[in-house]
C-alpha cells in the first residue's frame, strides 16, 4: 500500500534537510544553441521547488536532465547521493548501462505536460504496468495499491477506462498516480496543468498540494503563481538558460529583485 | 475414370535375376549403400504416375525396379521437380534422373544418358479437330502450345523455313510451364494444337475428359511421331562406372524380354529400342 497523500512519508520524518538533488554547473546544448548555461540548484528531501520562467528558458530541459532523458554536456547532477547516468571509476566517468539508468529513474517520478498516458491500457493498467513489470510487485498487491492511488486522486470509479475516455484533468491525475505507484523519492512536474481547461486545473493542483503536504520532494515547472505561493518552499526564476533569482516564494513572487522577473510576473498573473 | 492409373503391378524386381556382369560393374559406393536415389518428376504419365495408394508406377518406375533386380540394389524413386533435377544431381541429392528425359546434345555436355526409349512427338488437337490439322505444315501461322524448354520448341522454331517455303507465316509458339498448361491452352482456344511427346499425347487423348476432349492428329508419313529422339536415364558425366552398370542392366532386361513386356504393358511398344545405347541422342 502507498498512502502517499494521507500521511507524512518516511522521507520528511527521517531525513529532513538532506539534499536529495544537487545540480552543479549543468550545461546542455542542442547543436550550436546552448539551452542551459550552468545551472546550480539544490533540493532537500521533503522540499517543494517551483521553477518559473518564460518559454524557451530551459525549464523542461533541466527537468529532463535530472532524470537523464537528456544528457548533459557539462556539470554534475547528483540524485540521492549518486551521479545520474554515469558511474565514476578511477577518476573517469563511465556511461551507465540502460538497465542501471532505469534503476536510477525509478526513484524519480515525472509528470508531463501532455500526460503521455499509454492509450492502449486502462487507467488501472497504466498504473500497474511499471510496478509489476519492473519492481516485480505481485499483481494483487499492485492492483490494490493502484486502486488506493486512484481513490486518492479522486478517480476511484475510472479504473477501467482508457485514457481517450477521460478528460484532460482526469488523465493528468492518472499520470500522477502512475508516477507515484513506483514510490519515487522525487517527483518532477513539467507544466502539469497547462494543457488543461481552466476548470480542470483545480483538481490537479489539489492533488499536487496534498502530495506536497505529505512530504514528497517535488520540482514543479508551473505558471500557477497561486500554487507556487502556497506550496513551494523555494521558487526559482530561470531565463535564457540561467537561474536569474531564487528564494522564498514571498520574496521572489512578492518582491523580485530582478527587472526580468518582475516583467515576467506581470505578464503571467 | 478420374485416376487413369495402370494399377501398380507387383514389383517386377522379384521376377528378375541378378545379372552378375552388370552387378560387378556397379561402383562399390552404391553396393555399400544398397540403393540408388532416383529423381523423377511425378506424375508425368505414362512414364511415371502414382497409383491409388500414392505409390509410384509407370514405365520408368517399373523399368527402374527391374534394373534394381539386375543390379542387386534398390532404386529409391523420389519426387523431384524436373526443372531442378540436374542441380539435384549436382547437389548429391540424387544419383540418376529417371524422368522421361530426352537425350540431347546440349544435355550431354553435363549428363550421360542410357537410352531406353525412342519416340517422336505428335500433335494433339481439340476433339473432332475443328481446325482440320493434318500435319505440322498446317500449324504454320497458328498459335501452338508447347511446354517450355522442350525439344519440340527447337524443332518447331526450325520449321519456320518450311512454312515460308509454303508461303505461310511461321508457327506462333506459346511456351508454357507445364504440359498441362499447354493442354488447357488448347482447350481454351489460346492455341490450336499442343505438340508433345507421342507417349504423353496418346495418354492425354485417351484420358482427358474420359477421352472426349482431345484427339491425336494421325500423320501417316510419321507413324512414330515427328523427329524421333532418344529418351534416357540421365546421370552426371563423371559417373562413367555407373553409366556402364546401368547400360549392362538395361541390355540384360532387353535380352530376357522383361523390357518388351513392360513396354507392352503401357502400350508403348512402338517406341521400344532394339538395344541399350549410351548417348545416342543428338547424333
Amino acid at each position: 500500500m502507498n498512502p502517499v497523500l494521507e500521511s507524512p512519508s518516511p522521507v520528511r520524518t527521517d531525513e529532513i534537510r538532506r539534499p536529495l538533488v544537487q545540480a552543479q554547473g549543468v550545461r546542455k546544448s542542442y547543436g550550436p544553441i546552448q539551452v542551459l548555461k550552468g545551472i546550480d540548484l539544490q533540493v532537500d528531501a521533503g522540499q517543494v521547488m517551483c521553477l518559473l520562467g518564460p518559454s524557451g528558458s530551459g525549464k523542461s530541459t533541466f527537468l529532463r536532465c535530472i532524470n537523464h532523458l537528456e544528457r548533459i554536456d557539462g556539470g554534475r547532477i547528483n540524485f540521492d547521493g549518486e551521479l545520474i547516468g554515469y558511474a565514476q571509476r578511477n577518476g573517469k566517468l563511465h556511461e551507465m548501462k540502460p538497465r542501471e539508468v532505469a534503476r536510477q529513474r525509478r526513484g524519480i517520478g515525472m509528470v508531463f505536460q501532455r500526460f503521455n498516458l499509454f492509450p492502449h491500457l486502462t487507467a488501472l493498467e497504466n498504473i500497474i504496468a511499471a510496478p509489476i513489470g519492473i519492481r516485480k510487485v505481485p499483481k494483487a498487491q499492485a492492483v490494490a495499491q493502484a486502486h488506493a492511488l486512484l481513490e486518492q486522486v479522486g478517480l476511484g470509479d475510472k479504473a477501467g477506462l482508457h485514457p481517450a475516455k477521460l478528460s484532460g484533468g482526469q488523465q493528468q491525475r492518472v499520470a500522477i498516480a502512475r508516477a507515484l505507484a513506483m514510490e519515487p523519492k522525487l517527483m518532477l512536474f513539467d507544466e502539469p496543468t497547462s494543457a488543461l481547461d481552466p476548470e480542470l486545473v483545480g483538481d490537479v493542483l489539489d492533488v499536487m498540494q496534498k502530495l506536497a503536504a505529505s512530504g514528497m520532494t517535488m520540482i514543479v515547472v508551473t505558471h500557477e503563481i497561486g500554487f507556487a505561493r502556497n506550496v513551494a518552499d523555494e521558487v526559482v526564476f530561470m531565463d535564457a538558460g540561467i537561474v536569474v533569482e531564487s528564494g522564498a516564494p514571498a520574496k521572489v513572487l512578492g518582491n523580485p529583485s530582478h527587472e526580468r522577473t518582475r516583467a515576467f510576473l506581470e505578464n503571467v498573473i | 475414370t478420374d485416376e487413369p492409373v495402370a494399377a501398380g503391378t507387383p514389383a517386377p524386381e522379384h521376377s528378375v535375376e541378378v545379372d552378375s556382369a552388370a552387378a560387378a560393374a556397379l561402383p562399390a559406393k552404391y553396393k555399400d549403400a544398397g540403393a540408388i536415389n532416383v529423381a523423377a518428376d511425378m506424375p508425368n504419365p505414362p512414364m511415371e504416375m502414382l497409383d491409388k495408394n500414392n505409390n509410384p508406377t509407370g514405365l520408368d518406375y517399373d523399368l527402374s525396379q527391374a534394373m534394381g533386380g539386375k543390379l542387386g540394389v534398390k532404386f529409391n524413386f523420389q519426387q523431384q521437380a524436373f526443372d531442378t533435377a540436374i542441380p539435384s544431381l549436382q547437389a548429391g541429392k540424387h544419383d540418376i534422373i529417371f524422368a522421361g528425359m530426352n537425350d540431347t546434345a546440349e544435355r550431354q555436355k553435363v549428363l550421360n544418358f542410357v537410352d531406353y526409349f525412342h519416340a517422336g512427338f505428335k500433335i494433339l488437337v481439340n476433339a473432332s479437330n475443328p481446325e482440320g490439322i493434318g500435319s505440322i505444315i498446317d500449324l504454320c501461322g497458328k498459335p501452338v502450345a508447347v511446354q517450355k524448354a522442350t525439344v519440340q520448341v527447337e524443332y518447331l522454331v526450325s520449321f519456320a523455313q518450311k512454312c515460308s517455303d509454303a508461303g505461310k507465316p511461321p508457327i506462333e509458339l506459346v511456351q508454357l510451364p507445364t504440359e498441362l498448361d499447354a493442354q488447357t491452352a488448347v482447350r481454351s482456344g489460346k492455341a490450336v494444337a499442343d505438340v508433345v511427346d507421342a507417349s504423353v499425347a496418346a495418354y492425354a487423348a485417351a484420358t482427358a475428359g474420359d477421352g472426349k476432349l482431345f484427339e491425336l492428329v494421325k500423320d501417316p508419313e510419321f507413324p512414330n511421331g515427328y523427329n524421333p529422339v532418344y529418351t534416357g536415364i540421365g546421370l552426371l558425366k563423371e559417373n562413367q562406372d555407373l553409366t556402364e552398370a546401368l547400360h549392362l542392366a538395361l541390355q540384360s532386361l532387353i535380352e530376357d524380354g522383361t523390357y518388351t513386356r513392360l513396354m507392352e504393358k503401357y502400350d508403348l511398344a512402338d517406341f521400344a529400342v532394339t538395344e541399350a545405347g549410351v548417348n545416342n541422342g543428338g547424333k
Partner: protein
Amino acid sequence: MAGNSTALRQPAPAQPEAGEPGAHDIVAVPLRHPGRWVLASLILLVLLGVATSLWRNPNIDHPTIAKYLFSDRIVAGAVLTVALTILTMVLSTILGIVLALMRLSANPVLNSVAWLYVWIFRGTPLLVQIVFWGYLGLLYKQLSLGVPFTEFTVFTVDTNALIPAFVAGVIALTTNQAAYTAEIVRAGMLSVDQGQKEACYSLGMTPLFTLFKVELPQAMRVIIPPMGNETISMLKDTALLSLIAVAELYTVAARISSQNLHQVELLIVVSIWYLALTSILSVPQYYLERHYGRGSRTLGPTPIGRAVALANRVRRSK
C-alpha cells in the same frame, strides 16, 4: 431496388419524450444515392452471373471437384500448408521484429547489417532463395563450423543430411518473410508517439520492457493489416516449395491434375481451400484490429452487428 424507393426512412430521430415535444423534429428526406445502388446492383448481378455461369459451365466437371475437395491427399496438403504458414509466420515475425529494431537502433553497425539483410532478402526472388536453401548441397557438399579462412573446423556435416527439404523450405520462407516483416514493423514503430517512450523511461522501465509493453502494442494497430496481407500471401507462397519437393496443398493438387488432366477442377478445389483458410485467418485479424484499436477511436459495430442493422433497414423500407 429498395434503395430507390421513396419509402426509405432514416432511423427514428430523437425520442419525443426527451425535451420539447417535437413540432420541429428534423424528419428529413435522406439524401439519395441512386448511383450507388445502381452500381451495387450491377456488381451483384455481374457476380451472380459469373458465379452461375461458372457453375453451369460445361467445361467444369462438378463430380471431380466434389471427389477431390476432401480427398486425403488434398487434406494432408492443406494441413501441411497451414503448418508451414504458421511456423514460418511465427519465426519470421520474431526475426522481423529483431531486424526492425536493429534498423531503428542508433548503433550504425546493427543498422547497416539489418539494412543489408532486408536488401538482399527482399531483393532476390523467393524462388531463388528456395533453390538456394534446397540445393545448398550443390554449392557446399559439407557444412563445417570453424574459423573462416583457416583450416580449423569444429565439426563437419553433410549438407543434405542437415537440411532436409522441409527444413530448407521453412528456412527459405522464414528468412525471406522476415525482410518484409521488418519493413512493416519499422513503419509501425515509427507511428508510435515519441512521448510514450519518454513516459516509460521516466517510470524506470528498461528499453526491452518498454518495447514489449508499450511500443509494440501501439504499433500493432498499424502493423496488423499489412501483416494480414503477408500471412495470406504466405499461405499461397508455400506453393513455391514444390520446387524442393514439399508437398503442400497446391503441389498436391498440381500432381493430381497432371495425372488425371482435370487442371481446372483441381484449381477450383485449391481455390476453395485457400478461400476457406483465408476466411478463417481474417477472423482473428478482425478481432486483433479491434483489440489494438481500443482507446484510439470509437469502435464501429462488428460485421454481424452491421448485417443485422442492414437487414433491419431493408425490412423497415418495405
